[in-house]
C-alpha cells in the first residue's frame, strides 16, 4: 500500500525539505516507531534521494525524483526513481581492515544502505530499500 508519494526537485535542499515532511508524516501515522528506526528511515531517505539528485539527475533543474513509500505488513519500502540513465552499482565491498579504506571520502552511502536495510535492489533508475519496522527484529547498529 502506498502511504506517501512526492516529486522532489533536484537539489539537496529540496531533498532535505522532503525528508522533513516525510518524517513528520510517518511520526503522525505511526507514533510507535522508535527513534532507532526513525533515524534509519531518515538516513536511508537522504542517501537514496541525494544520490538520485547528484548522480541520477545531475542537479538538473528540469528533472525530478519520485519518492514513494509503501507499507507491506511490518515492512516499509522506500522507492526512489530519478530521470537519469540508470544506476551502476559497485561490484565489490570496501575492506574494513585498512585505514585508507575506512577514511575514504567517496562511495560510503551505498555500503551503508546495504548494512542498514533488510534489502536493497536496483532496477534501471530506481532504487528500492526494504526496512523492517518491527523493533524486536531490527538489526542493531552496534
Amino acid at each position, binding site marked *: 500500500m502506498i502511504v506517501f508519494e512526492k516529486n522532489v526537485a533536484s537539489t*539537496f535542499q529540496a531533498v532535505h525539505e522532503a525528508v522533513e515532511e516525510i518524517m513528520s508524516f510517518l511520526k503522525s501515522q505511526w507514533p510507535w516507531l522508535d527513534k532507532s528506526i526513525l533515524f534509519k528511515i531518515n538516513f536511508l531517505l537522504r542517501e537514496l534521494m541525494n544520490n538520485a539528485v547528484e548522480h541520477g539527475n545531475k542537479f538538473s533543474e528540469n528533472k525530478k525524483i519520485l519518492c514513494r513509500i509503501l507499507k507491506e505488513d511490518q515492512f516499509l519500502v522506500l522507492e526512489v526513481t530519478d530521470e537519469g540513465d540508470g544506476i551502476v552499482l559497485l561490484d565489490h565491498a570496501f575492506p574494513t581492515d585498512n585505514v585508507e579504506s*575506512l*577514511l575514504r571520502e567517496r562511495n*560510503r552511502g551505498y555500503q*551503508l544502505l546495504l548494512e542498514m536495510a533488510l534489502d536493497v535492489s536496483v532496477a534501471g533508475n530506481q532504487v528500492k530499500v526494504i526496512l523492517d519496522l518491527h523493533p524486536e527484529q531490527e538489526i542493531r*547498529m552496534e
Partner: protein
Amino acid sequence: MEKQIENRNVIYTLSEGLTANKISEYSQYLDQTLPDVESFDEFILNLSQTDTIDSTGVTFIISIYKKMKVLGKKFSISGATEEVQGLFKLMKLNQFFEMRS
C-alpha cells in the same frame, strides 16, 4: 554552526543537521573561522543539537579529522546521540577519534 574557544580547545557546535544541504555552508564557516594553528590543541565538534546526518556529513567529519591530523591536533566529537554514535561504530570510525557523551 557556532565557534567557542575554551582553554585551548576550539569547539564548533552545530544547531542543525549534518546533512548534504548544509555542508558547503559549514565548510565555508570553518575555513573562515578556524583559529590560528598555534592557539589551540584540540578541535571538538559538538553534535548535541544534531539528530540527523547523512554520508555527506560523515565525509565532512572525516575531512576535519584528516585536517586536524595534518595540523597535529586532537579531534573529538561530543554530545552525539546514541544513533549517530552507532553509525560511527558501524563504519568503524570510532577507532580514529574519541566520542564523548
